[in-house]
């Protein structure tokens, strides 16, 4: 075990990470100031609550994506999975009347898509982007089938509680995301599973030779991401009081960008959940600010693409400088 993680830690200079996090915090401050000058409503407590709630789903999905990208993989299906698992949850709720069965169904449905991804990627060793591109299409299609291409209104207060309730200005979902962050941090940093996630991404073959069963770990990583997509689906439904087949469109793109912004290496094996949290905050503020300032949605799309490309380019250059 130590054989895999020891060189890993050494190559991972703490100074670099601290510097990156400092830069991210700085950028978050600058972006906030910039947008608050452009739009005076930006800094109101209400808007901060709305902002945090609107990116709560991105927090969860991005934390799952961090696990995936630490293994060197990618999951293009999460956005579709949020729509699909939400559909399964809502339909279960409507037909049985039990919100708890609805919760369970949503999370299990998310895990099922995750398991399919994991089976093809971990067991059959197929490329992650191709497998998840297929489930990206299939899960969205299934969502459209379940909803019959129309939204379903939800009234059950228990089902809507997590995504829809606020304590004063604080949406309930924010402490929930914080709780998930702690839980996932323990899983990633304090368990052998977490160490195996890093080992799988650093060097699959070494992990295999050392008996860490990287293939099986990959399956569980994608199942975990699927479960988080299921949770995100519950939150999304709670936020808008209805289940919608087109929800979560391009969510995977936002998550990938936020995770890379947060310093997780594309090649896998390097990165932390804290970075992802900062990445989501910065990215969320930018997106939210663009919406608030009434930017043309097509221009937003160009800006999003440019941010992803810019961050990847920057990372490549700085990493090459160190080598």
């Amino acid at each position, binding site marked *: 075990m130590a054989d895999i993680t020891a060189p890993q830690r050494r190559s991972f200079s703490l100074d670099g990470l601290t510097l990156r996090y400092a830069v991210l915090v700085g950028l978050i401050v600058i972006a906030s100031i910039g947008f608050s000058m452009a739009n005076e409503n930006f800094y109101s407590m209400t808007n901060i609550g709305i902002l945090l709630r609107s990116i709560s789903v991105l927090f969860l999905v991005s934390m799952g994506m961090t696990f995936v990208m630490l293994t060197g993989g990618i999951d293009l299906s999460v956005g579709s999975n949020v729509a699909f698992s939400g559909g399964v949850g809502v339909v279960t709720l409507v037909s049985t009347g039990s919100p708890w069965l609805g919760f369970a169904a949503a999370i299990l449905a998310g895990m099922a898509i995750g398991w399919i991804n994991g089976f093809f990627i971990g067991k059959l060793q197929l490329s992650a982007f*191709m497998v998840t*591109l*297929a489930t990206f299409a299939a899960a969205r299609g299934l969502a459209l*089938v379940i909803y019959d291409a129309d939204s379903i209104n939800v009234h059950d207060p228990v089902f809507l509680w997590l995504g829809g309730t606020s304590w004063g200005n604080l949406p309930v979902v924010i402490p929930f995301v914080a709780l998930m962050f702690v839980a996932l941090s323990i899983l990633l940093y304090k368990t052998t599973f977490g160490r195996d996630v890093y080992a799988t991404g650093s060097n699959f073959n070494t992990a295999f030779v050392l008996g860490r069963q990287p293939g099986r770990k990959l399956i569980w990583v994608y199942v975990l991401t699927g479960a988080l997509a299921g949770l995100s689906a519950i939150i999304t439904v709670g936020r808008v009081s209805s289940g919608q087949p087109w929800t979560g469109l391009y969510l995977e793109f936002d998550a990938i960008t936020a995770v890379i912004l947060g310093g997780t290496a594309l090649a896998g094996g390097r990165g932390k959940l804290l970075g992802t949290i900062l990445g989501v905050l910065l990215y969320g503020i930018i997106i939210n600010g663009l919406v608030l300032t009434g930017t043309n949605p*097509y*221009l937003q*799309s160009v800006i999003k693409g440019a941010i992803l490309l810019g961050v990847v380019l920057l990372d*490549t250059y700085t990493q090459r400088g160190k080598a």
Partner: protein
Amino acid sequence: MQDFGKLFRENNIIFVTLALCLVFFLISPRFLSVDNMSAISRQIVPIGLIALGQFFVVVSGNIDLSMGMGSVLFAIVLGVIFGVTGGVALGIVAVIVFSLAFGFVNGLLVAKLKLPSFIVTLAGLFIAQGLSGLIIPRGQQIFLMGGFFRFVGAEKYFGFYASFLFLVALFALAYVVYNHTRWGAYVIAIGNSEENAKLAGINVDRVKIGIFMFSALCSGFAGVILSSRMGFVQPGLDGNGLLLDGIAAIIIGGTLILGGRGTVTGAFWGLLFIGVTNNALNLLNVTDVWHQVFKGSIILAALGANYVLWQSRQAEAQ
């Protein structure tokens, strides 16, 4: 018997496609009518162009996610140049130049900066989508009138659409390039092992840039043909659906997603498979919502099947 097994394994997609045609014919005899066949041949042209571009990209071990939205963008470039100047030739030249430039940037980022192709082209997808809506505001259209667009969209020779003949010619050209030129061998070599290709003295970067430029050019043609058929261009078309169909076609056609393996004829049969299924789903009144489920499942199944076949070949070789 063993020979038949081998024959089936090597050409499974042909058998599957023909069997599918038979099934559809039994369900609905209209399926095999000349009119319907002709309609299929026209429907598959844009998908086929995307598939052909992706074929070389995937054999080289990469992917180009930007080219579905790319073809929407290139069609809009055509529309704007045509709308402003009224010149068809100028519009086509603009599409060719612009698409080659787009592909060049993709290729440059992948080859020179060693960035993963799916990230570069995912960003490209968003940039293409955004640009297409910035050039023409959503909801607006530019109409493409005139002899050229009618020719591309509807002209027939000997009962075949001109655009379909163009596609077949391009596939034939690709077949020759892939199987009988040095460039084709380089693409396979890079897909098998980039390191070895470099050691063998292949200019890997240049070949990769070329592959992405070709993919973008194909996508430019797809945009021209698609918009000529419709008679107008507008942003917000389903470029990603086109891309998914193109990728599905080559995977069903046996192209190994790990790179280094695949045949142009296989890709063509995969294209026919996709064309036939798309058409049959419409003919049988299967609602749109099922199409995506079906596509995704087909890609997964084909990925699994290719993998199993590949493993059995490896086992045979040992």
